[in-house]
């Protein structure tokens, strides 16, 4: 079951997308995915969900009140760097596209009005690409373990770091205390 989060400020869009994702088969190559869809009409609420749950794919509109799609995906990327990211938008100027690619590293930009088939294949591709990436990383770690380039402890530390970014670092205060809240870290 792949968990997909969609954000759009328009409820009709969310409803239409949910219908498509529920009905159409999502497959790429010989892999097929069943999708579980979580929809949000506000990027702030969606970001809250990203903080608490893990998602495989994030789909965002670009123009939304409060926070645009790029800001949302950028924030979500720092929390869940492994989730695939798509932008689904009716309009974005070149500036926005450049930001989307350079700052966020989106997998796909899909224009509105979208074509259901294109949308599904883009989602399938993004999910397959993500799977491949994770698998590659795991295999590479296995090889490194065998070669002795890396210790099991390091592999575990990396895994923990992915789940909770920053957990493997200790921030020492000037008086020898350990600073947990990033707000109180000395900025140097």
């Amino acid at each position, binding site marked *: 079951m792949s968990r997909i989060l969609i954000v759009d400020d*328009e409820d009709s869009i969310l*409803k*239409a997308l949910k219908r*498509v994702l529920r*009905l159409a088969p999502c497959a790429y190559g010989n892999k097929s995915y069943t999708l579980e869809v979580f929809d949000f009409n506000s990027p702030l609420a969606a970001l809250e969900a990203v903080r608490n749950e893990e998602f495989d794919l994030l789909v965002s509109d670009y123009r939304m009140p409060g926070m645009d799609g790029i800001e949302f995906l950028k924030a979500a990327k720092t929390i869940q760097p492994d989730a695939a990211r798509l932008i689904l938008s*009716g309009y974005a100027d070149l500036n926005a596209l450049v930001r989307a690619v350079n700052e966020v590293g989106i997998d796909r930009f899909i224009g509105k009005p979208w*074509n*259901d088939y294109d949308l599904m294949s883009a989602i399938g591709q993004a999910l397959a690409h993500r799977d491949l990436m994770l698998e590659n990383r795991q295999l590479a770690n296995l090889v490194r373990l065998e070669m002795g380039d890396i210790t099991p402890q390091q592999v575990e530390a990396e895994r923990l770091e992915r789940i909770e970014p920053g957990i493997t670092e200790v921030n020492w205060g000037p008086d020898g205390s350990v600073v947990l809240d990033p707000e109180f870290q000395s900025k140097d």
Partner: protein
Amino acid sequence: MTLSFDHEWRLDELLDGASQEKIGPALGELLGGDFSITDDAGRTLWGQPVPEARREPLILELEPVGYLLSRTASAAALIAARNLMHVLLRAEIRFKMASTLHLESVAEDFESLKREHARLIESEARYKTLSAELEARVKKQVGDLEERKQMLYEAEKLASVGQLAAGMAHEINNPLGFVRSNLSTFEKYLGKFAELKSHPGSLAESWQRLDLDFILEDSVDLLHDSAKGMERIARIVADLKAFSNVDRASEEYTDLNHCLREAVSMVEAQMPPGVHFRFDLLPLPSIVCLPGHINQLFFNVIRNAVLAIADSGRPGEVKISSEADEAGIHIRIHDSGVGMTAEQIEHAFEPFYTTRPVGSGVGLGLATARNVVQAHSGRISLDSQPDVGTTVSLFFPTPP
């Protein structure tokens, strides 16, 4: 007149007829009646020379220029007469020389004046052609500038049309997106209903298995959504048409409140978050105007207001009020945005003055606005304080 200083004066040059008439009788009287004057060649100038007369030369330089002859006078008297003549002749020479000099210098002055005059005529002609050339060049450059200005103006118009189109694209593509998707979903739903026919088992059972309750319910919802989406697109297109006035380009009676609302609905299409509108519109008399231009004017001013709030980075309000008195219609558009400095206000109406970064407008919004207002014999003024906000006041006269 080429008498120079080394000219050898002849006696007849020095003593013309008139002076001979004066001198001859006087000297004749003094010298005892018999008296005559000859020049150096022996020609007689005055009197009747007699051969036995006493002769006295008149020597001015080295050579004698003439002779005084008298038979009756004594030698001493003749010498005295000669000395007298010397004095007279020398005075005459000095006078002649001075007058020659004077004439020469006058002639010289005249010549140089003539030369100066010719030179002036020539240089005047030169300056005339130069000025004609310059005028042509200035004209050409002014023409170039006008053309460039026009081009920039067109570019700005295109840019604002582009911005408008971008906002419109977003507005239209959203409903278009879900309507299209919904319709293709609906096709699949119908496919499910078609399956019902070939499905084995009882109707109720198949209905249950295919989850047709949900599909039926969702289909209604889907069609309802789609219809609403189409309505939205229709409204946007109608707004755009009304705004651009594609179907009425001429002057007509218009309610400016209506124009204000249309312009606001255009701006809303591309509005940044955190901006609210408040209307305080009192009933206005209709005035004769070009609605397309008026819409453009309001759109420019209201868009400025919205951008000023967006620039301030805090939520704000655009307050639009209108009222009419016997003189005309007053419209005020106030925003609580970044405001303007005194210098910015001073330049605000100048074409191509902008505080925005390159690429986001070339600074013709207010210039266009002022042109439109002036074309309707109205007035536009700005009142602003940095960090407090800006008020744009518009006035349109109504015919009495």
